């Protein structure tokens, strides 16, 4: 089973829920941090990393000896990443979407592929939890291929918890796509609700069932609950504001370590997710 933890709005508590849920369940769990722009789960899980690899995406390499400057590569490229100018071919690697069109269309077989570095993928573990995250290279714009790479480490024999990035565009879709259940962490504020509606829309487009966790549930208004009732969205957990939780989070401590009574609540959350799927 794959549970994607998403939110729309940033800073609502995705990472808090994903990490505490993983640690509460404890065994046969893998946590994949797919917020590759700003991965944070490792700050809380503090895994021992035993493997780091560079993730690349293919971009064209041109053999000017074979190239006849016919310009077909520039014509097929929708991303203006390759162009024939004067007596040469210019490739703009950072614009390339790795579709392979230029290589396929070249009549002289003058194009091969090399790798452009997207970032790194790290694999580790703590307390029996398998942990994997991607870290986008600072300056790199394209996160979805790195997210895909992190997700390729999914082990179907285990429960997979995915920490998704904020928003509702391509990176989030990538992190939600393989999920059996999307757990949406929100806060009862106008910003929280507005962005929650977008995230629910994304789950609907992908046709994945979802449920809510309301964080800082007593700091705001009732409108998230009214929305959930109208949309038939189950509220699976509420986390009231507690300065001890906020301070523990600030230090990188896990709620279930500082306040062990929360472990049962996260287990209950997991049971509720399972019963939603039955």
């Amino acid at each position, binding site marked *: 089973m794959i549970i994607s933890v998403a939110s*729309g*709005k*940033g*800073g*609502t508590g995705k*990472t808090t829920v994903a990490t505490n849920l993983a640690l509460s369940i404890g065994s046969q769990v893998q946590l994949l941090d797919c917020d*590759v*722009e*700003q991965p*944070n789960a490792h*700050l*809380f899980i503090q895994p021992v990393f035993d493997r780091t690899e560079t993730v690349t995406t293919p971009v064209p390499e041109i053999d000017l000896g074979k190239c006849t400057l016919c310009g077909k590569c520039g014509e*097929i490229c*929708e*991303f203006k990443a390759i162009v024939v100018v004067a007596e040469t071919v210019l490739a703009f690697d950072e614009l390339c*979407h*790795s*579709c*392979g*069109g230029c290589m*396929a*269309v070249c009549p002289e077989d003058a194009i091969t592929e090399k790798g452009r570095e997207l970032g790194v993928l790290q694999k580790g573990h703590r307390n029996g939890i398998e942990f994997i995250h991607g870290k*986008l290279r*600072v*300056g*790199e*714009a*394209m*996160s979805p291929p790195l997210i895909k790479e992190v997700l390729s480490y999914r082990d179907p024999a285990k429960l997979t918890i995915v920490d998704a*990035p*904020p*928003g*509702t*565009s*391509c*990176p989030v*879709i990538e992190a939600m*796509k393989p999920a059996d259940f999307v757990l949406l962490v929100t806060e009862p*504020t*106008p*910003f929280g609700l*507005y*962005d929650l509606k*977008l995230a629910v*829309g*994304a789950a609907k*487009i*992908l046709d994945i069932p979802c449920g809510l966790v309301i964080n800082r549930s007593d*700091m*705001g*208004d009732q409108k998230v609950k009214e929305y959930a009732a109208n949309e038939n969205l189950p509220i699976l957990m509420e986390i009231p504001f507690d300065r001890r939780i*906020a*301070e523990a*989070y*600030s*230090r*990188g401590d896990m709620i279930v370590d500082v306040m062990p009574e929360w472990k049962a609540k996260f287990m209950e959350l997991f049971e509720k997710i399972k019963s939603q799927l039955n």
Partner: protein
Amino acid sequence: MKEIIIISGKGGTGKTSLVAAFSSLAENKVLCDADVDAADLHLIMEPAVVRGADFQSGNSAAINKDACTECGLCREMCRFDAISADYIVNPVDCEGCGVCVHFCPETAIDFPVNTCGEWFVSDTRFGPMVHARLGIAEENSGKLVTLVRQEARKLAEEKNLDLILTDGPPGVGCPVIASIGGASAVLIVTEPTVSGKHDMERVAQLAGHFKIPAMICVNKFDLNLELTRKIENYAKEKGLSCLGRIPFDPVFTKAMIQAQTVFEYDGQSTVGEAIRGTWQQLAENLELG
């Protein structure tokens, strides 16, 4: 003209609430919401739309079933696994590269332009505002960010305004890169948490990578004083100016629920004073008139 982008690295540190509060203090400006993926500034600004337009960008493949012979070449060549076994293109997976369109021997694949969202020029009680809405699950957020920034600049020139105050997106990827390129400066709003610090460092590196001057302010500073000091020390080491500390205060949330800035909600709050000080520092650094 000066253009300042408020970013954070980590989401939920208070960017939008702070931009709203600054809009009470700044004069002669255009407001711009460049967080097109989850735009929230309009919830406080309540903009009256003056004009709007569709945002069209990129294309998606669509197979014409009548002409398709199911030869399989498109499925073989698509690197995004966007074409199903029964020859239907999944728009969520289609990258818009056009490889299938080009190579289909029956020319059975159309390639219509995508409408990915909308953008608006509006009036607000704090002046003109440019904002947008990216469709759910759409791509090209970077291009929409570039578009709203260009429109904000045009508007500022037309109306002879000397500041563009922009609410930026979280993260360090495509939309953030599109938000900060060529800006006068960025203000990084961070919080004293291990994740806030981690993400601030990455986005500060990004600003450095594109040679954009960066400043820092610590929101909810009293949540963890030790980390607040560590963040400020990091900023000093890297030559980023620290504009101020803003205390943790539920007044931010209360104001948001009323669709007000913190100044409108409570003219006397401590948090308001801290924001005023931060703004003065920012205006001095930017040499605003």
